[in-house]
């Protein structure tokens, strides 16, 4: 196994995913297989090759910083599980 349980726990925390014990066991096995599989990339000679940034070599387009959207907060908040007075509710962050 190229990954152990501690590493998978670290990755799951980075990804903000809570996994069950069963899921951990399966993830160690399957993620190890995936990592072994993608490890074959290390054999490729990429000396002097610039990492690809865009499939068409295009530059990211910029736009003027102008207000183009209207305020549709109420409509957007219809998809939220917990809102009040136009605010999204989350568990208490500060004591």
């Amino acid at each position, binding site marked *: 196994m190229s990954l152990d349980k501690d590493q998978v726990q670290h990755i799951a925390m980075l990804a903000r*995913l809570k996994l069950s014990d069963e899921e951990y066991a399966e993830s160690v096995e399957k*993620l190890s297989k995936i990592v072994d*599989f993608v490890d074959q*990339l290390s054999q*490729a000679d990429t000396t002097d090759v610039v990492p690809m940034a865009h*499939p068409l070599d295009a530059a990211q387009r910029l736009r003027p910083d102008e207000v183009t959207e209207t305020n549709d907060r109420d409509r*957007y908040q219809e998809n939220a599980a917990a809102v009040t007075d136009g605010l*999204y509710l989350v*568990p208490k962050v500060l004591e």
Partner: protein
Amino acid sequence: MELHLQTLTELAAGLERGDFTSVELTESLLQRIAAHNDKLNAFVTITGDEALAAAARADEARASGSGGALNGLPIIHKDIFCTRGIKTTCGSKMLDNFISPYDATVVEELADAGAVVLGKSNMDEFAMGSSNETSFFGPVHNPWDLECSPGGSSGGSSASVAARFAPAATGTDTGGSIRQPASLTGTVGLKPTYGRVSRYGMIAFASSLDQAGVITRSSEDAACLLGVMAGFDERDSTSIDQPVPDYLASIGDSIKGLRVGIVRQHFDKGLDEQCGARVKDAIAVLESLGATTVEVDLPNLDLSVPTYYVVAPAECSSNLSRFDGVRFGHRAENPEDLLDLYCRSRGEGFGDEVKRRIMTGAYVLSAGYYDAYYLKAQRVRQLIADDFKHAFANVDVIAGPTTPTPAFKLGDKVDDPITMYLNDIYTIGANLAGLPAMSVPCGFVNDLPVGLHLVGAHFAEETILRCGHQYQQQTDWHTACPEAFK
């Protein structure tokens, strides 16, 4: 001919002649869906009322002499495209109740042209899968053999078009998700050049690879739809500002003198022998039409799958970080604190394959591994793109198999991610290099369809569509209808 067996182009002519109305056409297809969908599970949502209302509007528009290029013609949207007021789930529990506040650009363009949307098709969760088995709403079945997969991730779209529920459906393709299901269901699947069709409102998986396209039964229909969908969109920062040609204008032209590249590595190993034979027969048809074949080399082909499985998960882990249980999507009950809210909402809302890809992505982007995996993969990706560039210096089209085998049984590959990933060996290269590509039905192996894969240079959709159309003028594989759906 019965309505459901007709192509989009044939139906358009029938509507124009007044042989039938859009309401009649829509009613007949909705009845077929109601009668047969239980066998396929091709839909997440069927929008019967909305479809009939749109059809009635289209009929009125026609009566008053107006209406767009697709006026009154029925289509299906993959459930990855946001549709205002109608549930958009992306095949996930995470978005089980998500009602989009806006339409995707593709949805808007097709609606403006008068298309009638029959429903939203089932798909692999967040488009991550090659068999449609990762859907929260259950797998889709292949109309050619109900025990087989229709491919994925656009499996609901491919199964619907093969079963004659609609002449056309939208799809998205990140590593083969339009072309592989098209190949496995005997339909035409077109993935345009990266940036050709807007990604706005198309739920993001891997933003440097994702591209919207269509599944149809003829190349001509694909050309017709691409003409409506292609074009610049300022709301998509990677949309390309280039004029859109009339894809139908040149589709009837001869392919005499067309240089067709045959990739040595495609026929080496891993390819089912009978599939290879069907593809070679198809290439012989192209030669009989005056095309010349040229052998080309893609030396880094084998590295395309591992490259993809670094780049795509990396982008997915970043894109899917938006699902936090706060603004939209699944939210865990009674969270202890903010971290618990994030971790449990995501742990409960995402399925196994999506979690696996998010974690793969988090790993290859994490401190200490970024250079060895992500940066390395982006370098190899450049090598793969260069291979295609060299090949297209000498050829106009690259032809080969779309998939290594015909449709496989549901359940056969679901436990082994690597075997599943290798299913996309022939299609992934076009995504990594941003090239247009399509799959065209080219025969059967053991009564299951096989596809011919045609790849073009950047923005050469006209060329591959013409090649596909000329091939379909000589063959009738695409008119074959699965027995149970005639």
